């Protein structure tokens, strides 16, 4: 009887620990997923930020870069790219901008979240400066042009001729008081 009891305790402890570990594993999937996407460039996640680097410009071909914008249903701002698309040489640094207007009667803060299609191109597109690095506050009725500077690496595979850069603009006014305390962090967290 004592042996059976010990054996049961052993099974319960081992399986209980396994269950707790698996609960932790569920949460571990979050960073694992990020790391996996980062390494492989899957999911358009590795939409990197970087400094100006002297890249050799590849003038043998051009790449079409399209800009699109999305507003979730809860976001009342007007938000659109200034240029819908541009043709560039890989390796060349370019600047463009998005236009945002706050038509509401109150001050609001927005955060843009980028994504790149096809996902394979994500790791070759580097943002040198981007409005998505920071939160964007706008007074009631105000509008602004928000710049972004980017470069497409000359190592971009030859079969990719079009890259679509998409921004979704989210209303984060509600979380602003908390976010203010740590202003520099929010932008980089997103990347």
């Amino acid at each position: 009887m004592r042996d059976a009891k010990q054996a049961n305790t052993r099974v319960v402890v081992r399986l209980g620990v396994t269950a707790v570990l698996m609960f932790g594993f569920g949460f571990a999937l979050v960073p694992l997923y990020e790391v996996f996407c980062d390494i492989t460039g899957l999911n358009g996640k590795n939409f990197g930020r970087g400094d100006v680097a002297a890249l050799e410009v590849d003038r043998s071909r051009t790449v079409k870069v399209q800009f699109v914008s999305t507003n979730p249903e809860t976001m009342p701002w007007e938000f659109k790219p200034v240029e819908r698309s541009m043709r560039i040489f890989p390796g060349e640094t370019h600047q463009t901008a998005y236009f945002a207007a706050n038509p509401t009667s109150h001050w609001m803060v927005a955060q843009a979240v980028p994504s790149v299609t096809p996902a394979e191109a994500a790791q070759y597109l580097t943002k040198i400066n981007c409005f998505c690095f920071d939160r964007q506050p706008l007074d009631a009725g105000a509008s602004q042009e928000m710049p972004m500077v980017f470069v497409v690496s000359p190592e971009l595979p030859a079969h990719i001729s079009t890259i679509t850069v998409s921004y979704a603009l989210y209303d984060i006014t509600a979380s602003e008081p908390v976010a203010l305390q740590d202003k520099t962090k929010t932008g980089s967290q997103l990347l």
Partner: protein
Amino acid sequence: MATVDIDLPHVKDHDHDPHHHGPAKGIGRWLFTTNHKDIGSMYLIFSLCMFLIGGLMALIIRAELFQPGLQLVEPEFFNQMTTMHGLIMVFGAVMPAFVGLANWMIPMMIGAPDMALPRMNNWSFWILPFAFLILLSSLFMEGGAPNFGWTFYAPLSTTYGPPSTTYFIFGVHIMGISSIMGAINIIATILNLRAPGMTLMKMPLFVWTWLITAFLLIAVMPVLAGVVTMMLMDIHFGTSFFNAAGGGDPVLFQHVFWFFGHPEVYIMILPAFGIVSEIIPTFARKRLFGYPSMVYAVASIALLSFIVWAHHMFTVGMPLVGEVFFMFATMLIAVPTGVKVFNWVATMFRGSMTFETPMLFALAFVVLFTIGGFSGLMLAIAPVDFQYHDTYFVVAHFHYVLVPGAVFGIMAGVYYWLPKWTGHVLNESLGKFHFWMSFVGVNITFFPMHFVGLAGMPRRIPDYALQFADFNSIASVGAFIFGLSQLIFVYNIIHNARVGEKATAQVWDGAHGLEWTVPSPAPYHTFSTPPKVD
């Protein structure tokens, strides 16, 4: 184990005599019981109630879909019905029914006096009704019940979910804890309480499939608990696991959910494999063909279930490598499943078959589950899945594997072991009446869904285009036939519990195994002294 009688005066008489210890009287018997048979019965009755409630919701869905246009319910309520139907059938009907069968049968099949951890057993049952009370109460709350589908994809369930989502999360936590405790108990019982001589490879297949299922439960139910906890934090504590605005990722939700969700699919089918593997040899009067290969097939299905989850999300924009990997990994599952179907057929080959009610359900299981398996193979093909995704073809597929699959497996098991529980021989006419009504009803309901699905009818929508009208009205008629015929099932169980010829210990003349060596009805305590297995 026998620690329950410490407060009895005759502490010395530890090995109490089974014939003098009956169940306690009154409601206390059920509230405080640690007896595996009582707890098994409660699990089964509970799951039958949930099956009827979930079925009622299905009938509301089918009644609305009888004609195009909106007739009976508001679209919001329709969404609540599809969500609650799924949640209740998966977590309230199918899973507890298997746990109930495990409680009743596993100790008797391996020659154990009870489950290894009887008090935990009581607890793991009694928290379950509360989980579902919480879940069902959300129907009466302001904003209604959860309406985002049983898969509760974020951000639909986080940013856009009703306030009752928090109750749903709490309910899922409780039922998860219940499942994990049940699984630990089953593993401890199987590993520690087998009768002398009952080696692992001599265990009945129902015990084997449950052992593997229990490991799956322990591996994935905590992940489900994790994903709902993340939802809770996103909703109430300002985190952004699944909120893109805060740097989270909605697609991550689907990955974590289906990492739980796909093994969950096998949790709902493996014990049914086990039941069918018990029944077919009995009524074919032959030994099960290829016992070791059956065990290995179940184990390989369980292992493969961990590397195929993303076939539920081929259309999220996965890279090609991912689509190809998950496509082939999924198709690989057809191999061990094929082994099982082959073995069942080979068991019947040249057997002296008779067609009693449990055998009819088992045969329907083999045929209809295989149809569901084939449509699953079609869905596994990534390029065509883009057309099938979120259509009624998917609904047809998973209802074929879950209704005539898991549910028929449970019904087969109930009819098979009912005489052992009640001591009365089964009324075959009533049983066959139930079988044929269910068999016809289930096919009329779900077969036309393949066609409307391939033609592009989306799932989870209360209205549809006119060209789908005929098949939908046929499906609705079938649903009412199937739904109402479950009343025969309820009647059969009550009838058998009250009247019927006295059953022998063996009950079915081809039945073998330890559970058929104890009298029918099985006494309150069985195998207090372990039997000897050669």
